[in-house]
């Protein structure tokens, strides 16, 4: 097992990784930006190293600084968390070159999954149902030609995109013509790669995903999650298991993702995302080669500590259980408490004056916040994840309601008022929703 892990991230996930390392008896060093120097993760880790100024580009996205920091503190592994460099083949390569273990999939898998169009093709070959779509293309003319074979409505996506960024819907050829140029420029600016591809647009889908874990010899799946409640493609509330999935589809997809993971030589934790259309047909859209923000809902229903498993796998110890040990018990819900005005999503950074997190049965809170802490404007708005587990979905919802009602955060605005409203909405309670639910609900 490792003796020291460098945590190349911030906020709640940095603290989450500190938890996992402590439980495994591993020392932690947090690589942090200057304003994060007094963050809870830094204070609670064994040590810390400042790798750059506030700007993410010069700190959390700075491969050279992270690898140098790992060497400097004598870490034998780097945990990249989610976001930032978590899916960066460049960081994985640099770690390898420096003789430090990157806690995540190998570089070739990161490269494959980072190219969304290629990943779609490979996963289709590995047996996953995919949305009909095109290969990557470089020019708007190619795009127009490929669209003819695909039909409308369709989705314009950046080959190097992800996390819902850079998506455009084209309902007609005219829409497409209008959007291709701008999408290309955006992709070049956001991802350093102007290439695009097209996908059949699935109307009013649900968004579900499967959690997998793979080591040198095996791949296992840990069930599914419902991630349909999104605003501007950002998830706000997740559940496990997924609400709108037939047992037959669940079982079939579970088997297929394991096969696909083995086919591409996957290692470590990962997520396979699907859209499910109104008829219940699932379509693979992408695979995320990292721990997800919403991993706690899976941990609550399975009792598995996914971050500890990530570390074990990276250390060559293998997943600590068998597929047959995986049992999904009850239902879990996560609400992402962001420092945002609830209705508009406008960021609300600032000092948290009062902070009292809910406790009691079946409630888990992952957060870096505390009374007197600062929510910086430089980074993403996630302040806390509240997770409620119950014997069934009804109990989980009742528990989440009371947890949110008892969660005191003063000094900044948060998404909690929106969550409270959603948790009383009859369509949500009945499980009747698609990815457009939240946006229609807000307006």
């Amino acid at each position, binding site marked *: 097992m490792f003796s020291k892990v460098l945590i190349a991230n911030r906020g709640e996930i940095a603290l989450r990784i500190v938890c996992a390392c402590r439980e495994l008896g591993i020392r932690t060093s947090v690589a942090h930006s*200057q304003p994060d*120097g*007094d963050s*809870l993760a*830094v*204070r*609670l*880790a*064994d*040590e*810390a*190293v*400042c*790798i*750059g*100024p506030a700007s993410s580009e010069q*700190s959390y996205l700075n491969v*050279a*600084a992270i*690898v*140098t*920091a790992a060497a*400097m503190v004598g870490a034998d592994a780097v945990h990249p968390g989610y976001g930032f460099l978590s899916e960066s083949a460049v960081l994985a390569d*640099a770690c390898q070159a420096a003789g430090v273990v990157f806690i995540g999939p190998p570089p070739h898998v990161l490269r494959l999954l980072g190219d969304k169009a290629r990943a779609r093709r490979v996963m289709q070959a590995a047996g996953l149902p995919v949305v009909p779509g095109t290969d990557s293309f470089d020019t708007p003319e190619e795009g127009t030609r490929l669209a003819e074979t695909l039909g409308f409505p369709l989705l314009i996506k950046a080959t190097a995109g992800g996390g819902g960024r850079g998506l455009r819907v084209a309902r007609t050829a005219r829409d497409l013509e209008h959007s291709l140029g701008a999408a290309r420029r955006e992709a070049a600016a956001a991802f350093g790669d102007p290439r695009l591809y097209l996908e059949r647009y699935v109307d009013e889908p649900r968004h579900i995903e499967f959690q997998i874990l793979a080591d040198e010899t095996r791949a296992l799946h840990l069930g599914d999650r419902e991630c349909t409640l999104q605003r501007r493609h950002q998830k706000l509330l997740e559940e496990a298991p997924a609400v709108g999935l037939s047992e037959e589809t669940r079982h079939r997809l579970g088997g297929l993702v394991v096969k696909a993971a083995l086919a591409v030589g996957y290692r470590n934790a990962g997520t396979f995302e699907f859209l499910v259309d109104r008829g219940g047909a699932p379509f693979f859209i992408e695979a995320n080669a990292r721990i997800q923000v919403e991993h706690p809902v899976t941990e609550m229903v399975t009792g598995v500590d996914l971050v500890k498993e990530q570390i074990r796998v990276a250390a060559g110890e293998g997943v600590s259980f068998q597929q047959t040990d995986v049992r999904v018990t009850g239902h879990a819900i996560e609400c992402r408490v962001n420092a945002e005005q609830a209705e508009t999503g406008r960021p609300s*950074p*600032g*000092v948290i004056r009062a*902070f009292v997190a809910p406790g009691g049965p079946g409630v888990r809170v992952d957060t870096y916040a*505390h*009374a*007197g*802490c*600062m*929510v910086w*404007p430089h980074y993403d708005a996630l302040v806390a994840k509240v997770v409620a587990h119950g014997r069934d979905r009804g109990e989980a919802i009742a528990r989440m309601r009371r947890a949110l009602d008892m969660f005191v955060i003063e000094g900044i605005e948060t998404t909690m008022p929106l969550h409270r409203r959603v948790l009383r909405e009859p369509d949500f309670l009945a499980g009747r929703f698609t990815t457009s639910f939240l946006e229609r609900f807000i307006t």
Partner: protein
Amino acid sequence: MDFDEIGQILELMRRHGIVEFELERDGERVRILKPDGSAAAPGGTLAPPVEAGRGEPDLVVVDAPILGTFYRASAPDAAPFVSVGDVVSAGDVLGIIEAMKLMNDVTSEFGGEVVEVCVESGQPVQYGERLFTLRRQPGA
């Protein structure tokens, strides 16, 4: 100073989470305080933050511009770029920091006398760590 300006200041304070703001126009004094989190200072393990040359307004500090290994000389057997007592000009190289086999110059923004070398050659330094203290030369 009118209310428009004060309103702008308050808005800036709100946006940046500033808790204290001081200004003194033409003698050019400004003082901005961010929250110290003292109310809830959870038990930390981190070393206390680097202190600036308090009290002596002509002392200035040169911090590490990146993290890496700090060297006072260009080679193990070369003479140090600067030593205590040396007078340097703005732009002079004071040392180098190696990160991933790349050498990065540490230069001075100011002219002045080197009064302190805070880190030994060959030591790892964090971003922002204090490397040198200079006494600014009048007019420099």
